[in-house]
């Protein structure tokens, strides 16, 4: 699915703050959307929580910073951090190049996936959110 230039993969869940969550098995991978990456442009620093940290849905867990601006990252789901993307320390530009791939931010083991996912948008819902809010012409 696509809105303008912005990719919106069907299989993921989204927040209105432009994070995505996806995965299978016991862990969920989290990142920022193509829209967020393109709006920030040129990511130069990423700060992430420590592995083992407890995070709560929609609370800030780090920052993605570009030349122009800094943006908080809000976790789409509560849980325990099981991994963070260490590659971003040396190559923060991966967030721009592959926001849904090698530019992922962190992985968590969710504590309440079932009920919390109902507070997230599917690809169609996120598309409509972008249509309603993304810088209008």
């Amino acid at each position: 699915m696509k809105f303008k230039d912005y990719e919106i993969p069907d299989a993921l869940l989204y927040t209105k703050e432009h994070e995505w969550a996806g995965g299978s098995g016991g862990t969920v991978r989290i990142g920022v959307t193509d829209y967020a990456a393109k709006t920030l442009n040129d990511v130069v620093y990423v700060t992430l929580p420590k592995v083992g940290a407890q995070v709560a849905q929609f609370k800030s867990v780090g920052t993605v910073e570009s030349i122009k601006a800094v943006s908080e990252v809000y976790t789409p789901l509560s849980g325990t951090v099981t991994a963070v993307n260490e590659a971003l320390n040396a190559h923060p530009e991966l967030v721009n190049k592959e926001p849904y791939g090698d530019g992922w931010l962190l992985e968590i083991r969710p504590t309440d996936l079932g009920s919390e996912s109902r507070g997230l948008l599917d690809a169609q819902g996120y598309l409509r959110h972008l249509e309603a809010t993304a810088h209008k012409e």
Partner: protein
Amino acid sequence: MKTTQLHEFHAETGHMTEFAGYDMPVWYTSTSDEHLAVRNHCGAFDVSHMGRVRVSGQGSGRLLERLVPTDVVSQPTGKAIYTLFLNERAGILDDLIILKMAEEDFIVVVNAANAEADLEHIQEESRGFDASIRDDTASSAMIALQGPDSRRVLQPLTTADLGQLKRFRCQEAQVMGHASAISRTGYTGEDGYEIIVYGATNEQPEAALEVWRGLVQDAKPCGLAARDSLRTEAGYPLYGSDIGKDTDPFVADLAWVLSASRQDYIGGAAVASARDSPPKRIRRGLVLDEKIPRAGFEILDASSATVGRVTSGTFSPILRKGIAVGLVEGSTSDFGTPVKVRIRDSTAPGNIARFPFYDEKLYGWKRQSNGK
């Protein structure tokens, strides 16, 4: 939202944002690519949103000397003058460029966000002066061509002999057959030109589009994000962030624009009294060892006392470090003074630094390699 004459090009290729009421490109390919293209080669910016006011007639020079604290009348024809509009308290109303096209004919170029207020200010003060004032913003476009290769890019397209046009000089010329004013000025720290193309409106933008397309055959189109990171690296102030009504020319570290002989301008009396005592705060640069300072962050001294505030901050693609402009207390303003910036729940160490932030032997218009 307002648009410039080049909007068609931007909307097709740029990532757009609202700026000063205009729909403008924030970047086309990437901020750092555009930034580095200007430092190493040549970039083109649409600056048509900036205000352009023609002030002419027998009293035009004296009117401008009422409005700005810089000498205008005694300057030679063909001079480009960076200066300020002040209020009676010497607070800065805007920073601007005056192009002295002829003895009694000037182009005043002001910031987009202040263009309306500035025009009114000029008109109000013009009573009693024999001067005509014309707003050319909608009938002309303005393009900044910036970077060490700017002359090579522009020369084939213009009748002007650019080898004869020195820094901070201006002249009329044809660019691709269109009546234009060219000044060797800009706001990136690099050598380059600002080109006002006449006869271009939003309804009939062809002249502007033709010149733009001619330039971007070779120059990289650059958006507002690169414009901001470039001007920050060069240490040039941004009106509304680093300077404003609450900063006088001394606080703004722009006292070099002040006339040595006159004080018969708006704000002259306040400037004269401010001259006697050193400013409590002054505009300074900061370089951080890591992290990026942003506007509003507190600046602390070595003992963690608050000594100022960041007014703009960015990541420098040349230094690969966070840099900032801030207003700091006099006691902390010496170059090299170690400071810290409060960034969310921690502090990041750095130093008070001289403008520009880059090495002037390698970058900027003074560089040794641009064949001057």
